[in-house]
C-alpha cells in the first residue's frame, strides 16, 4: 500500500503516523509539503496530528486553506481514502470534507489520557478488522476536540451510520465522564457520505505496539492496508 502524509507547518505527529503505517504493512509513506500543489498516486492520504499554524485563529483553519488542500479535496472527491487524526480531523472539517465543528474541550483544558472508543460500525474501509461493538483503548491529546453539529447533521450522520467511533466506558456503556471533551452524542470519529474520508480525534497511531500500553489502534491501519490490497 502506498500512502502520503501531508505536512503542514506545526504538525508534529507525522512520525508516529508513519511508524503505525509501516507496522501495519504500508510502504514507507511519502511526506508531502503543504506548499505542493499535486499529490502522487496513493492508496491513502493522511493528515496527521499536531498544531498546524500553532492552532492560531481556529484549529486547522489556516492549514485547510493551504495549496495542497485543493488537491486533497479533489482526490477525496475522486474516492481516494483520506484519514485525518486530531489536528488532521480539524483540518478536514475546516476544508469542508466533513461536517460539524470542533470546539474547546468542555473543561477548557488540554487532555492527554487513554480513552475507550466503541467501534460503531465495522462496515467501513477503516474498521473492517474490528467487530461492530468492539471497545478499543487509545489515547487522546487535544484541547479542542469537542465535536459539535446541528441537529439535522447529527441525525443524518447517525442515520447513515457515519459515526464510526464514540467515547465510552471500558464496558462499552456511554457516560458523560467517558466523554471528557464534551462532544455531542459522544462523537469521536465520523465518515463522509461516500465513506472514504474518516476524521477522528483520538490517536490510534500511538497504540500500535505492546510497549505503548496497548495495540488496539493497529486495527485501523490494518483495515486500511487490507482494503487497499
Amino acid at each position, binding site marked *: 500500500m502506498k500512502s502520503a502524509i501531508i505536512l503542514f507547518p506545526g504538525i508534529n505527529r507525522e512520525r508516529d503516523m508513519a511508524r503505525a503505517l509501516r507496522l501495519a504493512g504500508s510502504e514507507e509513506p511519502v511526506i508531502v509539503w503543504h506548499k505542493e500543489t499535486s499529490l502522487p498516486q496513493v492508496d491513502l492520504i493522511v493528515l496527521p496530528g499536531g498544531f498546524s499554524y500553532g492552532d492560531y485563529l*481556529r484549529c486547522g*483553519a*489556516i492549514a485547510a*486553506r493551504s495549496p495542497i488542500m485543493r488537491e486533497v479535496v479533489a482526490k477525496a472527491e475522486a474516492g481516494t481514502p483520506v484519514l485525518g487524526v486530531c489536528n488532521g480531523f480539524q483540518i478536514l472539517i475546516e476544508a469542508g470534507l466533513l461536517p*460539524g*465543528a470542533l*470546539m*474547546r474541550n468542555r473543561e*477548557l483544558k488540554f487532555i492527554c489520557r487513554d480513552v475507550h472508543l466503541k467501534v460503531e460500525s465495522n462496515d467501513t474501509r477503516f474498521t473492517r478488522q474490528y467487530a461492530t461493538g468492539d471497545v478499543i483503548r487509545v489515547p487522546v491529546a487535544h484541547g479542542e476536540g469537542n465535536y*459539535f453539529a446541528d441537529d439535522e447533521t447529527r441525525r443524518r450522520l447517525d442515520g447513515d451510520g457515519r459515526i464510526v467511533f464514540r467515547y465510552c466506558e471500558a464496558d462499552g456503556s456511554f457516560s458523560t465522564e467517558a466523554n471528557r471533551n464534551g462532544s455531542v452524542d459522544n462523537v469521536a470519529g465520523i465518515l463522509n457520505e461516500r465513506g472514504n474520508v474518516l476524521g477522528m480525534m483520538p490517536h490510534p497511531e500511538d497504540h500500535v505496539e505492546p510497549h505503548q500500553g496497548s495495540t488496539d489502534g493497529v486495527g485501523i491501519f490494518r483495515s486500511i492496508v487490507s482494503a487497499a490490497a
Partner: protein
Amino acid sequence: MKANVTITLKKGVLDPQGKAIEGALHSLGFDGVENVRQGKLIELELPETDREAARAQVEAMCEKLLANTVIESYRIDLV
C-alpha cells in the same frame, strides 16, 4: 484603512468558554452575571481607501478564512 472584525458564535451553538467564564465569575462572587459569550476580535489594516471596496475585501477575508460560518457570524467595522 483600518478594520475591526468581531466574530461571535451563532445563537444556539454551545460556547464552552463563555460557560466556563460565567462559572468562574460566579465563584468570584459576581453572582448575577449571565449569558456570557466569548468571541474574537481581529484588527487589521489594509491599503484600500474606498470604504465600499474595503468592506468587500474584509468580507471576502471573513468568508474565506477569518470566520467559520458553520458556527460563527461576523461583523465588520471600518475605522
